[in-house]
């Protein structure tokens, strides 16, 4: 017996994020570190809680170990609850089938029973790999007032990027008239953020009929939304104006981290009215040594800084030794940067060691060092390379 719910959330967190290269070799994209102490999925989970949505299914598939452990019982986000809370939904073996989630729609279809348990009026579908602060409760009341069958969160994107997104054409009252997934010649710059609110019964109906179509790729953008438009259902666009990034590539991840720097960063994380929550680790405060020099950087607890850090973002428990120089880089947790080494325009994944006197990267392109890699002292890793180390 669950109490009445106007909405529950389903977070799609199973994608590999292969364009993030070595960073997603061992972890799912939603579990990639961001902004020092966060992981990407913290934004979606915190948005849910801050919007009053306390029943959240997280659909996992690719490399779920770290993600599962990180979410745990959801206590970091106040999602450890008697009624609802966060539930991890991996692919499972059923009586007549046992296969992976095929597409976004198929993943939700396979968890229709989870949604039915709570009997919500609406279902909010989210991606676990976007960085933004958004009040879903406003979108939900917009959806309700409009009497929409489906509402899609949209954002205005630059023309040159438009063909990477699902592009919508809308009439003056935001009714969606056309939807095209990744069009070659985009008709507008209104892009889908991959955020959908559906009336539950309508969602079920379309998921079930889509599942019967053997030619369908079982994707919300490619199949479900076009099918709904074809049947003349009421689809509305909900325009969003804040900061929103899809950190799908090495460069966009690096840029989004850099957006946190400066006097007036484009994404403010220390916002007490909209807190982003993250998992708790018992590290001591940061220790800054006598020769340290830190300029325009974000540093997290457990770090020990004796060298120079400039325009960079450091996660927990990173050591920067005397004479080491880190600039314009993202350093993930538990990395050791030894004496006299130089790291420039790079992303160093967690647990790696940069040996003394090594040189990593140049300003021309972002260099990636994978997780738990030992870079030998004095090595020179050229700019733009993806270094996974000698280990398998």
């Amino acid at each position, binding site marked *: 017996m669950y109490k009445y719910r106007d909405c529950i959330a389903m977070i799609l967190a199973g994608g590999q994020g292969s364009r993030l290269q070595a960073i997603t070799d061992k972890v799912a994209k939603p579990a990639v570190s961001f*902004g*020092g*102490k*966060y992981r990407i999925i913290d934004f979606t989970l915190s948005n849910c809680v801050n919007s009053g949505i306390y029943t959240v299914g997280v659909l996992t598939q690719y490399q779920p170990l770290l993600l599962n452990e990180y979410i745990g019982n959801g*206590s970091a986000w106040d999602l450890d609850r008697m009624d609802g809370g966060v539930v991890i939904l991996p692919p499972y073996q059923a009586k007549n089938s046992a296969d992976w989630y095929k597409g976004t729609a198929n993943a939700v279809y396979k968890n229709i029973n989870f949604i039915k348990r709570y009997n919500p009026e609406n279902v909010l579908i989210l991606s676990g790999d976007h960085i933004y602060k958004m009040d879903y409760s406003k979108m939900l009341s917009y959806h309700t007032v409009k009497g929409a069958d489906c509402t899609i969160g949209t954002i205005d994107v630059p023309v040159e990027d438009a063909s990477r997104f699902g592009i919508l054409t809308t009439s003056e009252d935001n009714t969606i008239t056309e939807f095209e997934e990744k069009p070659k010649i985009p008709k507008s710059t209104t892009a889908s953020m991959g955020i959908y609110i559906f009336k539950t019964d309508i969602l079920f109906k379309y998921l079930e009929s889509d599942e019967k179509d053997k030619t369908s790729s079982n994707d919300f953008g490619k199949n479900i939304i076009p099918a709904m438009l074809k049947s003349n259902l009421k689809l509305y666009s909900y325009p969003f104006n804040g900061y929103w990034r899809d950190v799908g590539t090495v460069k966009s991840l690096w840029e989004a981290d850099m957006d946190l*720097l400066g*006097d007036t960063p484009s994404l403010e*994380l*220390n916002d007490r009215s909209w*807190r*982003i*929550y*993250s998992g*708790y680790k*018992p*590290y*001591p*405060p*940061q*220790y*800054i*040594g*006598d*020769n*340290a*020099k*830190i*300029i*325009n*950087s*974000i*540093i*997290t*607890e457990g770090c*020990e800084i004796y060298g120079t*850090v400039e325009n960079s*973002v*450091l996660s927990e428990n990173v050591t920067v030794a005397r004479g080491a120089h880190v600039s314009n880089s993202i350093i993930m947790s538990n990395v050791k940067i030894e004496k006299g080494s130089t790291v420039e325009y790079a992303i160093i994944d967690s647990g790696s060691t940069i040996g003394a006197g090594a040189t990593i990267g140049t300003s021309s392109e972002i260099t990636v060092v994978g997780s738990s890699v030992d870079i030998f002292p004095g090595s020179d890793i050229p700019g733009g390379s993806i270094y996974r180390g000698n280990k398998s």
Partner: protein
Amino acid sequence: MSAAGIIFSNIHDECISELTRVRTMASVPFGGKYRLIDFPLSNMVNSNINNIKIITHYNYHSLMDHIGSGKKWDLARRNGGVKILPPFITAYANRENSLYTTRLEALRSVSASIDEIEDEYVVMSDCDIICNVNFKEIINEHISTGADITIVVKEETLNQEQAMKSVLFIADEEKRIIDVLSFPENYNGRGYVWMNILIISKRKLMSLILDATAHNYNSLIQDIIAKRLKDENYRLFAYDGYFGRVRSIPEYYSQNIALTRSNSARELFLGKNSPIYTSVPETSSTYYGNSCSVKTSMIADGCSIEGKVENSILFSGVKVDKNATVKNSILFENTIVSSNVKLNCVISDKNVVIQAGRFLSGHETAPFYIEKNKMI
């Protein structure tokens, strides 16, 4: 063996009366993100002691806020967990039911709750000590030596002033206690100083409490331990890890500032896979601005630093504006240091705002303390 923990949150409050005006000794901030109770509490949890009672007296709102459900220490449990015991005063309170002042009186006042303990042993600790100690080892020794009480001490060199605020134990070669010096007035030099931690069986503890009630004993050390040295087996356990004690404001100040000199305190905070846990407000990481200069300091998350910080401890949410200089200071949560401010040997309590251009300085023997929520 199984053990329960008892923590005294208010004893010694008067040693640092400025800081305990609005809180208990237990909830006094320490080392950038901790409260003093985090040390005994985490030490107990790391020693597999999961049934912990915290005895309070007054001013315990801040303590209750900090402990919450005990989740951050893995103490939100169905079986055991952490429990705060406020003073137990019955209706028709008379003098006998009034608030306690000593450890023994405190135990007497909550004896019903202690009687409910089902564990065989009890570890008792105060909140004025800073250490990372494993009680498992001490309890094992307590059992194997057949001790009635095991007293945990640290061998230290004391000056006269420190000795006057300490309890010292003298033991024979087998570490059996043969003499006690409570707050000696003319002692200096090396000695075994009590860390305000002891181990006792639950049965023994209950009989002590009943005995104390019958005879109106008030001091555990003077009325009980000192008088029974010959008949009972009281033993020492000497701890040799990182140790700090808070007996006065200058000592509180120097224990904090000592953390900035080198990062040797990492051993204290992380132990051997025995971290000190705490509860802190949810903030982002710390931002170091374009014009900042930070040296030999310990800094929590959630700060924003544009000015100069040296040999200082910054708790979460501290803001240091451009051209401000913070030296040898301890700034509690959400302190705001505006531009062109100069601070030296200052302790600012929570939510203090120091307006532009102020110069404030204390001395390490008499740090300048600014009370909670004050604007200067």
